[in-house]
């Protein structure tokens, strides 16, 4: 990851902004870290080795999908947001 353009593209995808003055330092750090990541690129592993995403091997453990009632006042307090007709006001998408 050598170009500032790539970093800026990643920042756009990640919805993260960084001050322009900090870009150089962040880029240097990221390059170091990616170099550490690259250590696994050339590692030879058996072809049939399955990836492991979780170490939880218990039984399926999912709650019933039952709606819980939440008081409107509690909702407002929780979100500390103004509601419009019971809905949160979101930024525009277009």
């Amino acid at each position, binding site marked *: *990851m050598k170009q500032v353009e790539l*970093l800026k593209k*990643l*920042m*756009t*995808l*990640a*919805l*993260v*902004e*960084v001050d322009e003055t*900090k870009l150089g330092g*962040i880029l240097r*750090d*990221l390059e*170091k*870290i*990616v170099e*550490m*990541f*690259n*250590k*696994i*690129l050339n*590692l030879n*592993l058996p072809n049939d*080795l*399955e*990836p*492991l*995403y*979780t*170490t*939880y091997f*218990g*039984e399926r*453990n*999912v*709650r019933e999908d039952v709606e819980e009632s939440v008081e409107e006042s*509690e909702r407002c*307090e*929780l979100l*500390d*947001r103004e509601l419009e007709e019971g809905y*949160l*006001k*979101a*930024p*525009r*998408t*277009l």
Partner: protein
Amino acid sequence: MSPPQCTDLATIGIKSLRARVEEDPDFLFKYIEEVYKIIEKYEGVIKAYITLRPMEEVVREAEEVLKRGTLGPLGGSLVAVKDNISTKGIRTTCGSKMLENYVPPYDATVVERIKTAGGIIIGKTNMDEFAMGSTTENSSFFPTRNPWDLERVPGGSSGGSAAAVAACEATVALGSDTGGSIRLPAAYTGTVGLKPTYGLVSRYGLIAYASSLDQIGPIGRCVDDVARVLSVIAGHDSRDSTSLKVEVPDYTQFVSEEPLRKYRAVVIEEMIGEGVDREVIKVLEHVVDKLEGYDIEVEFRSIPILEYSLPAYYIIAMAEASSNLARYDGLRYGIHLSTEGLLWTKTYAQVRKMGFGDEVKRRIILGTYVLSEGLYEGYYLKAAKVRRAIYDSFRKLFSEFDFAVSPTAPTPPPKLGEVVADPLKLYSLDINTVPVNLAGLPAISVPGGFVGGLPVGIQLFGPPLSEGVLINVARMVEVIVGYER
């Protein structure tokens, strides 16, 4: 040995506290007063807490505990809670400006259980922002100092919890451990920290960093305290889909100075290799020699794949973090900005620019990078395969041995500012702790000795659900070292 902040009264453990309060209920108020005296004197320098409850509030709650008629297993203990664990009505910041004013409307399962067991929440402890760090210097508020040497870090990310316990500003604490965040601070502060088997303790109410790795666990001044808290917080919870349905024993039955059965132990060569301080290895050798005196057979084994555990861990953790932290957009959670006239991308990016610190941004960007098209197979998928190889290696190892022993950290605690500016130096502190999280195993860090007056932790880890064995051996290490507080 204790750091200079502690007094005899404040050093008391859960067992003695409970016994004394049962004899004389007023003792609980004397104890609370003593802890607050220490806080008043030292907290301004140590800075273990982000939010400390006023003493009057804690005293009122102590009165409620005493009125119940039964003290409960925690008997009025003062429990410090890491600030990424939800506490109803108490601000929970996760060490971040993003959640600076967030007050959860519910308690995490572990907090509910602590309260039911007669524990009193004393405050919320400092941490690296969103648990991303190993020194507690990445807190958005202030760094925490190590009570043993105020120029040094207490480790992280649960550094506030460990420092509070070490300095006797709490009886015990809760931390969370994604790649060593309980064990590393425990090692650096001369406390005992246990990371349970993945799924043994509910994560309901824990603010997620990397969900396949995160676990909540106890930090205490002695193994007995840790065993008592674990007995309270462990066990199935239907609100966590990764919670194990297993019977939880009373872990205090394993707090024995003698081996409860014949054990076979292993030292993994990669965990005492390059980068591990020679003096730290000497501490380990001393403990291992003494364990052999208990008729424990100790052998050496090599697991070459561990050489790849650090990159695999950080790839997986950052990938999961980039997804988990997507919820901080100012709409669902986080700083609220006016949305008038702005596109959602601009609004979210602004909120995240203002709310997240540099380390969090770095990890989200890298998480996005390793999951991006064309790179996913090389990084994330490969890391998940390395994780499988590590998991399989440990499974094989623990078919032969009961537990493994290693230094918790490669060096004694660094000075403030010594490693935080260099991400690779910072990440390398986790070299011996991350393999345990990748495999979902239980591990405990217990004081093993001192180097230059600074505590050094010994890590014991074993197969899933071997917490009892680890507690037994950790208690033996306490006796070996003669470090009992």
